[in-house]
C-alpha cells in the first residue's frame, strides 16, 4: 500500500514537520512512490543551511566512554539530530505497518525466540553438525577464539592465494575484530562494498548503526567525503549523483579484487548453509566475482534447519526497515565450480557470554537494529556517541561483556522505557538486562561519579518508606512549582533537552488513603 506522498499530510505524523520536503527524490515506478529497503516513507530534507558533522565519542585507551558528552555534541547540531531522529522513527513506523499485515507476527516472534534459545542451549551439537555438513560440501572451516586469531586466519588464507586486495560486504563481526585496521597493517587493501559502509570507510569512521551505517550523516557530509576521496564535485550533494559516482568508482575494484568476504546473518546446521542478506547485492558480488570467498561468522548465528530459517527471514527486514524482505537473501552451501570457500567461526567472547545467567539471551540477537530505531536516546544522540562496536539498546548490554570498565557508563544511557524489548523480533528482555547491568556496575564500583552521589541519596530515601512518601509528595509539588533552573541543572543529565512530565495532582498513596481507607 503506498503511503501518501503529500508532504503536508506526512508532516502530521512527523516528529519534525519542518523536514517535510516539497519535492521527492526517491524512485517512482509505474506511478507509485517506493519506500522499500531503507527508503523513507515520505520525502524529507534538512530545513536549513549545512552544518559540520558532529563526531562520535572521545576514545582514549581503556578510559570510560562518556556517551552523554558525545550526545550533547550531536544534539548541538540540530540538522543532524533532527534528520537522524526523523529517519529512524520513520523506520520504526514502517516496521509497525508491515507487522500489522502479518497476523501471525507475535507467534513468529515467540517461535524465533524459542528456536534461538533451543539452539543456544545445544550450541556445541549444532556447531559440530554445521561443520561436518559444510566440510562434506567442500567448505574449509576454521575456528577463531578471538578477533586477533580471526584476522590471522584470514590473512593466512589470503597469503596462500597471493591475494593483495579484498572486497567485502558489511559485517559487524569484522568491526568487532578490528579487521580493516589489521589488514591495513599487513598491506592488504580492503574495499567495503555497501554504500553506507563505504562512506564510513572513506571517512575513516566506524558504522553508527548495524543496518544503516551512515544514517548519522547528511548528504552534504557525504559530498565532502566523496569530493576528497573519489574526486566528485564538492558542491554537488545530489543523492543520485553521489550514489552513482560511488557505483562507478567501486565497480573496477570489484572486478580486480583477488578475494571476497562476507559475514552471515544465519547459519543452517542441517544443510551446512550460511545465509547473507543485503539490499544492494554487494555481498553477492563479493562472493561471486573473485575466485576466493571467505565468510566470517559468529558462533551464535546458527539455527537447526531450513524450516526455522523461514521464521527469521520473515522477521529480519520487517523489523529492521519495515520492508518485507531484503532485496537479496543468498544461501551459500559450497564453493562455485573452480572457486574456493572458507568459513571462519568466531567466538570472541560469545562462549563466555553464554555462561552469564542474566545476559546469555543477548546472544539471540539477529542484528536488525529495531531496538536502535525505537530508542529515544539513540535517535537523538547518534550511534557513534556510544564509542563501541554496538550502539543503542543492544549495545548497552553487549558492549560491557567486551570491556566492563570502558563501557561501564553505557547502561545508564537509557530511560528504561522498554520500547526496545517490545520491538525485538527475538524477544530479548533488553531493558531488564540494561537495569541488571547497572547493578553489576554498582557491585563492581564502576558507577560514574554523578550517578554515585544521586544513588546514595536515593538509596537512603528508598530505605525508609515514610521518608520516601513525604519526598514523593513534595517532589510532585516541586515539579509543578520549582523554577526551571532547579530541574534543568547540570547534575541532572536527563533534564537537558527534555521537558518534564506533568506531575499528578495527588500521589497514588494519597489517593489510596482517601479512597480505600488506611492501607
Amino acid at each position: 500500500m503506498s503511503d501518501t506522498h503529500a508532504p503536508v499530510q506526512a508532516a502530521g505524523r512527523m516528529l519534525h514537520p519542518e523536514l517535510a520536503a516539497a519535492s521527492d527524490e526517491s524512485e517512482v515506478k509505474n506511478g507509485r512512490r517506493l519506500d522499500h529497503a531503507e527508503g523513507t516513507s515520505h520525502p524529507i530534507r534538512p530545513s536549513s543551511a549545512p552544518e559540520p558533522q558532529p563526531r562520535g565519542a572521545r576514545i582514549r585507551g581503556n578510559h570510560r566512554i562518556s556517551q552523554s558528552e558525545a550526545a550533547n555534541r550531536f544534539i548541538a547540531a540540530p540538522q543532524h539530530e533532527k534528520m537522524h531522529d526523523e529517519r529512524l522513527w520513520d523506520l520504526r513506523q514502517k516496521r509497525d505497518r508491515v507487522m500489522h499485515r502479518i497476523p501471525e507476527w507475535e507467534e513468529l516472534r515467540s517461535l524465533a525466540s524459542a528456536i534461538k534459545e533451543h539452539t543456544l542451549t545445544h550450541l556445541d551439537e549444532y556447531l559440530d553438525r554445521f561443520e561436518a555438513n559444510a566440510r562434506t560440501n567442500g567448505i574449509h572451516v576454521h575456528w577463531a577464539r578471538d578477533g586477533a586469531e580471526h584476522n590471522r586466519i584470514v590473512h593466512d588464507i589470503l597469503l596462500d592465494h597471493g591475494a593483495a586486495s579484498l572486497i567485502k560486504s558489511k559485517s559487524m563481526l569484522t568491526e568487532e575484530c578490528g579487521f580493516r585496521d589489521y589488514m591495513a597493517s599487513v598491506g592488504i587493501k580492503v574495499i567495503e562494498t555497501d554504500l553506507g559502509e563505504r562512506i564510513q570507510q572513506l571517512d575513516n569512521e566506524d558504522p553508527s548503526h548495524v543496518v544503516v551505517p551512515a544514517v548519522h550523516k547528511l548528504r552534504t557530509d557525504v559530498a565532502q567525503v566523496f569530493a576528497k576521496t573519489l574526486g566528485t564535485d564538492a558542491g554537488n550533494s545530489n543523492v543520485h549523483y553521489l550514489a552513482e559516482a560511488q557505483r562507478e568508482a567501486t565497480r573496477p575494484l570489484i572486478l580486480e579484487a583477488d578475494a571476497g568476504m562476507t559475514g552471515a546473518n544465519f547459519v543452517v546446521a542441517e544443510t551446512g548453509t550460511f545465509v547473507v542478506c543485503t539490499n544492494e547485492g554487494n555481498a553477492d558480488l563479493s562472493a561471486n566475482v573473485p575466485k576466493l570467498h571467505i565468510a566470517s561468522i559468529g558462533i551464535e548465528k546458527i539455527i537447526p534447519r531450513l524450516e526455522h530459517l523461514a521464521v527469521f527471514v520473515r522477521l529480519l527486514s520487517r523489523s529492521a526497515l519495515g520492508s518485507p524482505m531484503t532485496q537479496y537473501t543468498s544461501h551459500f552451501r559450497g564453493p562455485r565450480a573452480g572457486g574456493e570457500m572458507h568459513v571462519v567461526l568466531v567466538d570472541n567472547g560469545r562462549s563466555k557470554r553464554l555462561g552469564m545467567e542474566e545476559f546469555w539471551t543477548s546472544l539471540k540477537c539477529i542484528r536488525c537494529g529495531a531496538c536502535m530505531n525505537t530508542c529515544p536516546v539513540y535517535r537523538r544522540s547518534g550511534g557513534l556517541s556510544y564509542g563501541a562496536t554496538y550502539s543503542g539498546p543492544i549495545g548497552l548490554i553487549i558492549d560491557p561483556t567486551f570491556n566492563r570498565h570502558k563501557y561501564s557508563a553505557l547502561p545508564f544511557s537509557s530511560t528504561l522505557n522498554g520500547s526496545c524489548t517490545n520491538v525485538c523480533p527475538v524477544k530479548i528482555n533488553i531493558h531488564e538486562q540494561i537495569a541488571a547491568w547497572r547493578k553489576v556496575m554498582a557491585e563492581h564500583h564502576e558507577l560514574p561519579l554523578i550517578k554515585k552521589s544521586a544513588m546514595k541519596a536515593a538509596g537512603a530515601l528508598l530505605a525508609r518508606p515514610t521518608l520516601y512518601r513525604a519526598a514523593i509528595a513534595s517532589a510532585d509539588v516541586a515539579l509543578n512549582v520549582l523554577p526551571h533552573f532547579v530541574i534543568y541543572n547540570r547534575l541532572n543529565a536527563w533534564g537537558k533537552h527534555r521537558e518534564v512530565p506533568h506531575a499528578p495532582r495527588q500521589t497514588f498513596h494519597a489517593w489510596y488513603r482517601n479512597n480505600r481507607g488506611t492501607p
Partner: protein
Amino acid sequence: MSARDEILSAVRANLPKLDKPLPWVPMFDDSAPVSLLAAFRESLLAMGGDFLDVPPGEDPLQAIRQRLAKAKVVCSATSEVTGNRPLSRVRVPQDLADVDIGVVRAAFAVAETGSICLTDGGLGVNALGYLSQHLIALLDPADIVPNLHHAYKRPEFEQGHYATFHTGPSATADIEGVLIHGAQGVRSLTVVPVPRPADYAQRVQPPSTRT
C-alpha cells in the same frame, strides 16, 4: 588444544542448564491469497521490481526480444532467449562486466514477498545476476508458492551450492533515506511469465554437481 576444541569445550562448560525444546513451525498458509500470481506481482512491484503484463494470446518472448534489440550485450542462461554473449564463452565472472541485460529463469517465486529464487544451476555463472546492468527473469506462473515457509520446503536449498532470493533490483537509501535502484548490482529486475520448457529439470543441474 586446538581453537576448535577450546571453543567447543568453553561452549559446553557454559551451556545454560535449561530445558528449551525446539518448537514446531506451522506453514501459516490459512489465509494464502486466491491468486498467487496477482499477489506475487503486487509484492514485486512494491519492492521496486517490474512485471511484464502479457496480453492473452500474445507471445511474452516477443516482448522480451523487442527490449533486447536495444541492448548491446545480452547474456542469456535460458533456452528460450538467445543473447550475443554465450555463457559457454564466459571463462571467468569478470567476462560479464559489460553485459547490459542478463536473462535467467527463476526456479520458483514467493507471493508473500515478491521474491524469485535463482540457483547456480539456472544462472550458469552466478555473477550474471549481479554484474549485468539489468536482469530479466522468466517465471512459470505455476511455480509460485504462497510464503517463505513453503519456499524453504523446496529442494533447491539442498541441491546446488548457491540459491538466492531476488526481491526487486539492487537498492540503497543509505544517503538521507533517498531510495535509489542500482546501488551495486542490477538497476532493474523484470519478471516475465513464461511457462517452463519440458526439458528444464535436466538443464539446470547445478554446476557443482555436474560430472
